[in-house]
């Protein structure tokens, strides 16, 4: 996490009092033993497949995790891909074989898919793989995986939904915790297709703090930051607790986050930046993506 510097567009702003009192939280990036990781993956697979794994399959999962190979280790389910990111405690399971079953039309509705996804979500809670107090899955964001095709020389295309996905970010007190969440996918045939969950663990509230930098001052600072651009687009803004991967266990308070892009006069759009303003100490925002302007490559 670095202080943001955008050329000469460095924000400076005044401090004014604000009466808002907010919670701060103790967070950690879980560190698990090999057997714990295998146990979590096996449990998640059994929820995903609605089937019990054999001892041989458990051994195959364990071997894949030990080797850090991202692959399809189950002989009975050769299309099921697994990946465990140990650095961010994140599990991914995908049924890679479902692309063959697409028909290009029809299929279940998004509401039906959401109902299936909610059932799996409840199963994961019952299996103690996720904590229901971290989520409001009813409010999960709806995402679609779309297929589209066409022919050269002919404008226009045909598109259809192949899969519905529902992603919930962890939250407490109505504030998102950007570094933890869950995503569940259901294909248009009604089969469970995708599961990703994990991230930072919320250990609890660690007292309160008073917001000192007002929301108005933060808005002014952001306006000054983007003033040099031809135009800009705010993709997301609001209070978030951000605890970047690699952080040690500790107390974190929310920051006021902007995710945004800039557009140049020539019509070039920047990659999306994510910055956060501290609510207690005024100053340059935290940059949650970072920059490496001095990067060098091969000699030419």
């Amino acid at each position: 996490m670095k202080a943001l510097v955008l050329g000469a567009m460095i924000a400076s702003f005044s401090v004014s009092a604000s009466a808002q009192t907010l919670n701060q939280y103790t967070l950690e990036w879980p560190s698990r033993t090999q057997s714990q990781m295998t146990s979590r993956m096996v449990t998640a697979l059994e929820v995903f497949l609605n089937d019990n794994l054999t001892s041989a399959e458990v051994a195959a999962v364990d071997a894949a995790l030990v080797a850090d190979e991202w692959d399809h280790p189950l002989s009975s389910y050769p299309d099921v891909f697994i990946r465990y990111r140990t650095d961010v405690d994140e599990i991914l399971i995908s049924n890679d074989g479902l692309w063959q079953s697409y028909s290009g039309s029809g299929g279940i509705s998004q509401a039906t898919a959401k109902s299936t996804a909610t059932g799996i979500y409840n199963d994961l809670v019952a299996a103690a793989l996720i904590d229901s107090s971290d989520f409001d899955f009813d409010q999960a964001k709806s995402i679609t995986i779309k297929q589209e095709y066409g022919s050269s020389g002919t404008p226009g295309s045909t598109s259809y939904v192949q899969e519905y996905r529902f992603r919930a970010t962890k939250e407490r007190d109505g504030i998102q915790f950007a570094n933890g969440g869950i995503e569940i996918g259901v294909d248009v045939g009604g089969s469970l297709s995708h599961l990703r969950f994990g991230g930072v663990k919320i250990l609890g509230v660690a007292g309160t703090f008073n917001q000192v930098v007002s929301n108005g001052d933060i808005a002014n600072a952001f306006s000054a930051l983007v003033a040099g651009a031809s135009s800009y687009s705010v993709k997301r803004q609001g209070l978030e607790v951000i605890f970047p991967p690699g952080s040690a266990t500790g107390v974190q308070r929310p920051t006021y986050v902007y995710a945004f892009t800039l557009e140049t006069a020539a019509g070039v759009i920047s990659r999306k930046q994510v910055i956060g303003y501290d609510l207690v100490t005024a100053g340059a925002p935290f940059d949650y993506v970072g920059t490496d302007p001095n990067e060098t490559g091969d000699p030419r």
Partner: protein
Amino acid sequence: MRHQYWARLIGLATLVLWTKSADATTPPHPPTFYIGESTDFTGNGCENTDLNTVTRTLASELRNQSWTGSRFVNAGTFPDDFDDTGLTWSEFADRSTLAVYAGHGNIGSLQWGFMRNGLCNRTFQSDTRLGHLTDGQAQFGMYLTSCTLDNDANQFYNFQDRVLQKFGYHNSPTIADNQPRDFFKATRGRSNRNAWLDEMNDRPGWFNDDNSPRIVSFIDQAQSPSVLGCWLRHNILRLRASSTYVAETMADTGAFWWCATTRDEQDDC
């Protein structure tokens, strides 16, 4: 799921048969790469925001897997590396299996950080001819930029490049340093399609980046009478398994099918 496994084998066999009639140009083997990356956009004639580095570990992993190639960064990468004008330097992007650019962009276009020969931007329509004409070796194009594969302007039907697949974004992404490496790593066992969608959306350890990765595949209509051949190619090619594409090419001319998969976050460019 067992019947799906057999269906996949049948599909693969069908694609192999089509391969026999592919265009005669032989791509390089073992595979090669060309990477251009801009992170410094301040004071070099092409102003924009500075960026994080996203291809360093990709290049390392490619080399670990016996790929050969070059990674040119900032003042070392030239906008006209992607042009097809008969340029003669040996690092030309179209002399590699995989051509990568990381920086800024827009629909069908790319922006470099250092101006060269008066150029900052290149477009697919006007400037690039990956996969044919001069050199013509590129089979894959990867664009770690904003909106380059946005199809709202209906650009795919008129692409001038002739590659097997393009990897990019529909919207403006936030990309972590190692995500492109992890995409390549995942193609050991997964299709490029699935790996691109799952590795290039949220950064690892983040759950609200809202990236919309998109992968587009192409196939000559002379090789495949229906769009089905495009979908088979789309779902089978794996970068780390060169056997899935070593004999695959696109003809220099003629009609083609395109087919794409997108993670749609309801976020336009």
